[in-house]
């Protein structure tokens, strides 16, 4: 997943410059805007794959910006960044039309993973695939069957959803918090390495009896499922 066009709307110039540099190093194209109005104009003109919007911006605040974009039928995926990390702030952000919400401070690996996951969702309204495939691993969403090399793998319901989410984002890093949010619908920090244990259980079921592992750990970031993982 490379060469995405990313718009960073953030009033702190240091942060914006750092993010732009980091995204370029990850192989993407990044533009910056330092206030809400400039950001809004850029977002309307340029065909960006993802916009990263700070919640508090001069001239036009982040939530208003997202709301205005949506009312102009601009469906650019938006990730809202905020120093407000309270439980209801996230809800407000998503209700305003944001697609994801990340509170400061964050790890860049977390931001990168979330931005890449957002960009893939791009064609809205496209029918969801009912069968997901990575190499010889197949997941059938309708029959809830998982097979690898024609061998059926029996998964618990939660393991199924975990694998489903990983396969939807095949080839891209998925962080622990993303898994906790999408598979368990929790947004808090579970203190212990619970997610790791769940993933290693899943890995035991899908990878152990096969010579080519598919599910890999990305150090300092999260997990990724792809063909030929090592």
């Amino acid at each position, binding site marked *: 997943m490379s060469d995405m066009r990313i718009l960073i709307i953030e009033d702190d110039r240091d942060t914006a410059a750092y993010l732009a540099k980091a995204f370029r190093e990850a192989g993407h194209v990044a533009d910056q805007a330092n206030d809400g109005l400039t950001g809004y104009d850029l977002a309307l003109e340029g065909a960006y794959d993802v916009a990263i919007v700070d919640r508090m911006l001069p001239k036009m605040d982040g939530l208003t910006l997202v709301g205005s974009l949506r009312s102009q039928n601009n469906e650019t995926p938006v990730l809202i960044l905020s120093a407000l*990390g*309270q*439980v*209801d702030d996230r*809800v407000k952000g998503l209700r305003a039309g944001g697609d994801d919400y990340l509170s400061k*401070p964050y*790890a860049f690996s977390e931001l990168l993973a979330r931005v890449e996951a957002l960009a893939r969702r791009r064609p809205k309204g496209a029918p969801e695939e009912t069968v997901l495939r990575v190499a010889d691993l197949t997941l059938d969403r309708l029959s809830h069957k998982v097979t690898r090399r024609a061998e059926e793998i029996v998964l618990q319901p*939660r393991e199924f959803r975990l694998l489903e989410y990983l396969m939807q984002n095949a080839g891209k890093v998925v962080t622990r918090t993303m898994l906790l949010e999408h598979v*368990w619908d*929790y*947004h*808090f*920090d*579970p*203190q*212990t*390495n*619970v997610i790791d*244990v*769940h993933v290693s*259980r899943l890995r035991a079921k899908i990878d152990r009896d096969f010579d080519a592992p598919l599910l890999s750990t990305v150090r300092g970031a999260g997990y990724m499922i792809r063909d030929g993982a090592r």
Partner: protein
Amino acid sequence: MTALGKLFRATAFRLALAILLLSAVGAGIVLTVIAWEVVSVVDREISQTIDAEAKGLMDAFNTGGLDTLRALIEARKREPNASLYLLTNPIGEPLAGNVQQIPAEVLSHPGFLPIEYRANERGGRSRQALVGVYVLPYGLRLLIGHDLGDRGRIGAVMTRALALSLIFFAVLGALGALFVARRVLQRIDDINTSAHGIMAGDLTRRLPVSGSGDELDRLAEGLNEMLGRIAELMEGLREVSDNIAHDLRTPLTRLRNHAEAALAFGGDAASYRLALEKTIEESDALIKIFNALLLIARAEAGGDVGPPQLVDVGEAARSVAELYEPIAEEEGVALIVRVQGPLTVRGNRELIGQAIANLVDNSLKYGASNRGSADAEAKPDVVIAAERIGGSIVLTIADRGPGIAPADRARVLDRFVRLEGSRSRPGSGLGLSLAAAVARMHGGSVELEDNEPGLRVRLTLPAADPPALPAAPADLVMNDRNAR
């Protein structure tokens, strides 16, 4: 503003005056009705008297003819306190009587009606009278009237009574209003003085309560409760800042030391990399502590966490148990869930989930080892049970670990308290206090009990709905499935 001016502006004074005014109007209405009734009784009696007299005169006319009648009227009008008499021929010319001026139309309508008249001898001022008009044979008309002086006197008595009672009301009401207003004002002033004292910084002071249990007492009690809560929050805030200072300084110093050491001693790229990684690790730990502290502080302040939703505590317990189940398995612990549903509370699903997760996390961390248990045979189970007791949803998490000594139980709910023997394990010492803060925020509580052996944490939350029917069979099936 003078004391009197203050008195007149008091709500109690104005209310008392308004009530006084209403009472006066009421008294006026009552007296008027009575007067009207009395007058109508008097009128009725007069008309009966007139009727009786007319009957006597008509009898005399029937037996003795016109002359007898005229003689009788002439005789009667000379008696003291005589009635009014007038006998006319068909065209209205007087034939006998003592009435001089009378409106012509009066005679053409037989029946009773009040009129004004002048006595024929002296003229003089006109007077009120009630007259009856009768038609005799041959077109003769007979008018008999009674003076209404009695009625006027009754009216005068009534008017005087009304005036007197109004004066009485005014004096009594004004005195009452002054008394009530003074009394209320005095107490309001007391409360105000106390409030100013509290605003000046003495947060331990409370508003005076007279002990009579009246509305001012209730108000003062409510405000005192509020003051107590504010003082508690202030205390909490002070504690938080103390703890932040204390517990963030240590890791901040460590963070700074790592960075400084890397700069001072240099080394190859790999050692710089290691130092930077450590720095990030330390700052992540700091952020976690900071977030937890902030959440506790907000929860205790009853912070804005959005509109409350209906949360099934049983469902939340199952979901958390499922999240932690692999960890329990790694530790060799059976994580058992016993839920007697529906266990709905009103609150924030995220926060309740996090509170339960913290409690389960603690149990697995400290309670799984089975050490401290005299009975080595006891299985290191962690049992999560949720049920409804009266108007509360009670969730207990029981382990077979070393437990917590009774003396330490209240203390561990405070922030950053980590008991000996747990300091070596990962954790911030905020898990239990966060759970307690979430419980308090939802109007519930967290208590620690002896599980004999082990620790049992009891999380109590007020139920969202009135007591429901006994558990349905479907719940029993779910229990079986979850009791792994």
